[in-house]
Each structure stands twice: as C-alpha cells, then as structure tokens.
C-alpha cells in the first residue's frame, strides 16, 4: 500500500508518495521506495510532478541556489562535462527567482513532456520550498538515505564577482603609467658636465691642485701629456695654441719692450734648484706684458713645469680680453739649470 507524506508550508506543499520495501502493509513504516513527487505552490496553477529524479533535482537546485543567496558568492553549476541538471534556479531581479525544469524523455512520466516548465517564485515562496525540502531531508521516516549535505565552496571554485576586466584595471593602469613616465623621462637630456674654470691663483695653490680629474674633458689642444694632469698647464697650452693662431705682433719696438719685461719677470721669479736640464717653452705675451699662455717644447719642460714661474705668472685671458686685443707677442723662453733665463722672439710659431 502507498504511504503519503506531506510537508505543508504556507506557500509550498511537498507531497511524497511511496512504499516501504521491507514492511509493505504498515502505514507507519519508513518510505524506502518513492513512487511520486508533487510540489504545489498555492497561487500557481500547475504543480510540479515527477519521480525521484525530480526530487533529487529539486534538492540539488535548492541547496546550490539557497547557499549562493545566503553567502552572495556565486558558485559553479557543476563539473564541466556532467549532464545539465533537471531543475535550476535563477535570480530574476531583487525579489523573484525562476525555477526552471528541463523536459524529461520518459513517455510514461506524468510531467508535461512539452516545452520546459518555468515557475517564477517570490522569495517567501522560495523559502517555503527550501523549508519543505529541509523538513523532508530531516525526516528519517522518508527516504532515510537522503540527508542534508551542505558544502562550502572552495576558494578556487568560487566565481569571481568582479569581472576580469575590472580586476585587471589597476594593474594595467599602473603599468601604463610607468611606461608613459619612462618614455617621457627618456627624452629628458642628460645634463652635461661643465669643465671647471682654470685656477687664477699663484703657483703654490696651483701645485696643490695636482689630483687628476678624470671627468674633465680638457680642450683638445695637443695636450695628451702622460701623467701631468695639471689643469693649469692644459689651459695655458690651449690658450697659447689659440693665441698663436690669431694675429701676432711683429712690431720690433713692442717685441723688444716685452722681451725685456718678460726676461726680468721670469728671472726674478725663477729658482733653479730643481732644474736639471734646459726647459724650453713658447710663451704668448699680451701687449701689456701679461703672460697669456705657453707651451712646452720638450718633455722635460712639461714634466718640470712647476719648477718654473710660468704657471704662477700666466693669466689665461677672458673672452672679453681676447675681443679687445688683436695681437700677442710670441717668445721662445729657455730656463737653464744655471739660473739664467733666455728670452728671444719667436720667428715662426709652430703648432
């Protein structure tokens, strides 16, 4: 004989009809074989009718959707490749939920084998369905093998609620800003290092400034002297080369005056104690008698330049001076170990 169990809620009626395999005559025996399931919603005309598969599908759909509603975390429908579930629930706005039933193939089944059935439920109706299912699962007298089996969604299976584009947006924005900043800064010119202006102080300070400055780019004026990294001599040589190219005076009166003046100045300032061999220089002198530049003629002259007073007496002319003056006088100066200074006008200046 068939046993009927009914779970009645204000908005849902779940009716199960079945039999007990073990004790077929006892109406109080537990239902172990299900014959018919009917799910009615008062207010909705067509009840859902089916067998155990409908019941299982309803339980599955209710668990899946109900948990998603409670947590707000969407969960994947099922393993890819598994058949589509018979019953599915979907949200339809803030307050409505669509219960969709797929068609069944069995001809003898009482379900309408026409188009799939869809029922729109309100939240309260949905809750009553959930409650009816929960009461059935809790009932040990009806299909005791079916119980409530809930599982939380593992982190990996939870569908991200923000779309991928929105999640990637901050990373993309940051990277593109970095690229744009790098491109903009690429065009910024590297600041050039200006050479330090030459020292105009006496020789004593000049000698303390011997440390070579690898960063300075000495003006290319034939000054590839090994080891003698003195900026002053470099500047002096450069100035001399520049001046010897510009006009030089050949006026004999001027030349002799300047020659005498130069010899006197160099002799008084020259101390021969460190000089071992003659040191020859070509010196450029301004019309006022200022030593504006010089160049060494032999290697010894370069190496021993600090023994001579030339560095101390040389004043590299400023561009303003050069503009005013037109001609310099060139002399050949030789410092001898004996202490004598020989000065003679230079006939043909050579670079």
């Amino acid at each position, binding site marked *: 004989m068939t046993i009927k169990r009914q779970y009645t809620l204000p908005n849902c009626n779940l009716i199960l009809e079945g039999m007990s395999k073990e004790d077929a005559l006892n109406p109080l025996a537990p239902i172990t074989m299900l014959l018919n399931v009917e799910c009615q919603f008062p207010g909705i005309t067509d009840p859902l009718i089916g067998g155990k598969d409908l019941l299982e599908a309803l339980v599955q759909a209710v668990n899946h959707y*109900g*948990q*998603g*509603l*409670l*947590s*707000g*975390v969407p*969960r994947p429908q099922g393993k890819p490749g598994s058949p589509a579930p018979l019953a599915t629930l979907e949200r339809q706005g*803030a*307050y409505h939920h669509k219960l969709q039933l797929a068609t069944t193939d069995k001809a003898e089944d009482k379900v309408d084998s026409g188009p799939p059935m869809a029922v729109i439920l*309100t*939240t*309260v109706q949905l*809750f009553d369905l*959930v*409650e009816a299912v*929960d*009461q059935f*699962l*809790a009932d040990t007298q009806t299909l005791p093998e079916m119980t*409530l089996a*809930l*599982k*939380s*969604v*593992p*982190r990996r299976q*939870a569908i991200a609620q923000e779309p991928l584009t929105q999640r990637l947006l901050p990373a993309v924005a940051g990277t593109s800003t970095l690229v744009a900043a790098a491109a903009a800064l690429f065009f910024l010119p590297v600041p050039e290092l200006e050479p330090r202006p030459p020292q105009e102080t006496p020789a004593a300070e000049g000698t303390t400034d011997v440390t070579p400055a690898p960063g300075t780019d000495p003006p290319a004026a034939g000054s590839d002297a090994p080891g003698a990294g003195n900026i002053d001599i470099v500047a002096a040589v450069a100035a001399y080369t520049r001046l010897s190219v510009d006009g030089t005076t050949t006026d004999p009166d001027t030349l002799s005056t300047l020659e005498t003046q130069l010899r006197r100045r160099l002799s008084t300032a020259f101390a021969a104690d460190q000089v071992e061999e003659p040191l020859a220089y070509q010196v450029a002198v301004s019309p006022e008698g200022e030593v504006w530049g010089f160049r060494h003629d032999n290697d010894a002259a370069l190496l021993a330049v600090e023994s001579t007073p030339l560095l101390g007496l040389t004043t590299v002319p400023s561009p303003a001076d050069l503009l005013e003056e037109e001609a310099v006088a060139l002399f050949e100066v030789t410092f001898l170990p004996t202490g004598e200074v020989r000065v003679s006008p230079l006939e043909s200046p050579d670079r």
Partner: protein
Amino acid sequence: MPVDSPPAVPKPLILDALRDPVLPGGVCPRRTQVDLDLLLLAIEALDVNSSEMMLGAVQELSLQTVIPGRVQFWQIRSTNPLRYSSQRRPLTLGEAKALTVIICHLSKRLTVLIRQLLLGYQQLSDRQLALDHHFRLGDYLSRFRSHFRARMNPQRAGVLIYNTDDKLDALALELLQKLLFCTGTQGVQRLWHSLFDGEVG
C-alpha cells in the same frame, strides 16, 4: 559540603553540531566577521529590544563559556573590520558558531515579522510604490540606516559603497531575506556553511 569553586558551566553541545571548516590560519576570514555583525545589526533594526534578547539568548542556549557577558559580546561583534571601534583580533570559530546559533534563534522568534515585511516589500515593488508606504518596513529601513551609519567607519572601502540611502535600503532588504533563510529547520547549518563560501582551502 564546602565548595571551593563555582560549579563548572557545561560546554555548549549545540555548537558541536557545526562542523569546523578547513581554513588557512584556523580563524574566521574577514567576510565572516562582516556578515555576522551585519545580520545582528539587521536583527537590532527589526526589534528595539533585540540587544536584551541577544543576551537572553546567550543564557538560554548556555553559551556563557563562549560569551561571558555584555562587554565580551560587544567585543566579539566589534571584530568586524568595518566598524569604527574595530577590535584588531580575529574571530575564533567557537565565537562564530555562537553568533550563528544566536542569529538563527532570534530570527526564528521574529519569523512572523520577517515574513510580513518581505510580503510588504513584494507588494510595494509589484505596484512600484516607495518603500515608505509600508509603516513597519519603513521603520526597519530607517533604523537600519541610522545604526549602520552610527557604527560603521565611512573611511573603509566596504562602507563607502553604501553611501546613499537607496544602497543601504537594498542592503537591509538583502539581510532581511537572509534572515528569512535562517528561520528554517536547517537554518543554522545553512548559515554556517554559507559563511565560508569561497574561503575554504
């Protein structure tokens, strides 16, 4: 006979029915703290006496070992990181279970009111009327809004998204629907498992 210490309060068996989830760190994730506090906030908005009801529920369900008193109850609720006075300590699984059980216990008491409000909401939205037309519903929504704004820190990103009345109303109605599900026979199990969706390893 002389007794040196008060009789031990039995450990609440009601919490053993809830299975411990596998969580990294063994403590509740942030989302759980927020969800539980917001559900309690919704209950407070439903009934003015609910704070006393909550403490009464602790006594009825014998949860004193987990929640000894009013201050500890407030401290546990304040683990919600969205609050102004957020306690910087994690929520233990035992405390979360206790809160879950209390929420379901109280929402069962408020079943009639919850269903009434949801039916009212359904009717108003079908006729496209403003939610103030239903007196109790308007009352619930305005109380929820004022409680939320008084307690939640607006500088938190999770609170900034609810910066208008409409958004807070939508949140209040979502929580009301969740409370409806908590009133069911298996409400405690359903709520407990939903707290860790997307968080278990």
